[in-house]
């Protein structure tokens, strides 16, 4: 069974003139990194909210179709409790994802395990591991509200990592990260997939994710229209036709009118253009 399964899902926000998702079908399996990409309003962020059950439970609106998150419909209150700690959600703006009650980074990361009633020893051990994995152990005693956006984003990710979730739902998680932070996140996504977790990431960071994701699912008008390996899709023209983009090098190659398949990385570009 897939960790995440959407079958013919439609979703319309309250008062919206058009649905954000239309007959959207998507599967994400444990052990793989699934990358969602699309133009603005294509529905990738909504798909993550629906998968987490927050749409429509928090957002309101109307959902149709079948959603199974770790085998449960996340929109029901009982499932929300059962999924607690098993699904990680990371949103683009880190400042609004802090608990607002922690005085130190360590307390912030311990927030969810404490809510789940973990024993103190297990919490401290998990917090230390998560902080080390995100390379922010030196911030453990700092006030999270006073840190930079990139540091806050790492804290938010560490606060999810400590739970060892079975399903990761990441919406533009690199929006506030610097190059070092992005590299850490990419390594983390691979290691989480290797642990058996399903990782679903909605991002436009083609340069970063081209070599990280196992699958690229391109959304257009509220549903997936392309679903293949990233290195295959990003070299072709279909992603552009769907309103999405590719890596900087592929974009450069496209702008110069080169034929497909296009190079994706600096190394590939240099190899082609210095022949």
């Amino acid at each position, binding site marked *: 069974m897939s960790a995440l399964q959407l079958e013919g899902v439609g979703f319309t926000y309250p008062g919206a003139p058009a649905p954000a998702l239309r007959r959207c079908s998507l599967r994400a399996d444990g052990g793989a990194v699934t990358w969602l990409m699309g133009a603005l309003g294509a529905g990738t962020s909504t798909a993550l909210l629906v998968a987490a059950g927050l749409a429509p439970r928090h957002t309101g609106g109307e959902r149709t179709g079948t959603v199974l998150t770790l085998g449960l419909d996340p929109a029901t209150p009982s499932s929300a409790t059962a999924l607690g700690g098993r699904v990680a959600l990371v949103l683009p703006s880190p400042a609004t994802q802090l608990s607002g009650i922690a005085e130190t980074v360590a307390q912030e990361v311990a927030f*969810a395990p404490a809510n789940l*009633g973990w024993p103190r020893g297990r919490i401290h051990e998990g917090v230390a591991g998560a902080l080390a994995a995100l390379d922010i152990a030196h911030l453990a005693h700092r006030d999270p509200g006073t840190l930079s956006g990139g540091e806050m984003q790492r804290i938010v990710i560490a606060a999810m990592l400590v739970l060892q979730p079975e399903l990761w739902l990441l919406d533009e998680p690199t929006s506030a990260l610097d190059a070092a932070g992005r590299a850490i996140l990419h390594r983390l996504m691979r290691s989480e997939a290797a642990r058996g977790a399903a990782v679903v990431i909605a991002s436009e960071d083609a340069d970063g994710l081209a070599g990280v994701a196992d699958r690229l699912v391109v959304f257009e008008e509220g549903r997936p229209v392309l679903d293949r390996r990233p290195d295959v899709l990003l070299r072709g023209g279909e992603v552009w036709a769907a309103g999405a983009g590719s890596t900087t090098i592929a974009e450069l190659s496209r702008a110069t009118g080169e034929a497909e398949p296009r190079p994706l990385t600096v190394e590939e570009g240099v190899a082609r253009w210095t022949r």
Partner: protein
Amino acid sequence: MTLPPGAPASRAHPFTPLVLTLAVAVAVVSAPGPAAAAVLYGATILGVLAAGAGRAALRALVPLAPLWLFLFLLHGVLGEGDRIVMAGVSLSRDGLALAATQACRLGAIATASLALYAAFSPARFVDAVAARGWPFALSYLVVATLLALPRFRARAAAILEAQRSRGLRLQGNPFRRARALAPVTFPLLLGALAEVDERGFALETRCASGVTRRTPLDPPRDSVTDRAVRWLAGLAAAAMVCWRVLT
């Protein structure tokens, strides 16, 4: 928390300053006249000084000064009843007594509240509630309420700076200043609403609405002194209410 960690109010169990503040509010509102209200205000200032939160008493004077002036004008100058002349000004005797009572009530409540705010540690309070086995929602309600103002103020400052950098002019005649309110107020309110949504998402994802009993990370010690102070404060407030009802 803005007090140094060594201050008595910082070391106290988080429920103690809260109970003391509530007791001060109940007692001073029940105080029957200016003398009792003044004694309670004085006791509050002494208590706050002893707790190491003396700045709170000073800081309370900023909002209190205009309120006291307003009370003096409303009741003392414009009040009815017997008149007395002070420094050549005719004042209402009853009005002055009422103004003094209200001024002391406001002073005691503001001073105690600011001291509570200065001594308040969100994490310690949440741990104290969790240690009692009470629901997390209860502690979050208190913490979110107390932290709402500084967050709102920080957001307002950021929006103000952003709008200034886009050419918003705040100086000038009252009409221009009033017009400048809209570009600051609307983003402030809309941003606050959006933040509520996103924070709701984050809290649910982090199991804040769970049914499991929360683990206190570092439960604060509830000493005999803390418990005694809380009981005494509660009894004193109850006694003041009884006195008010019976006299």
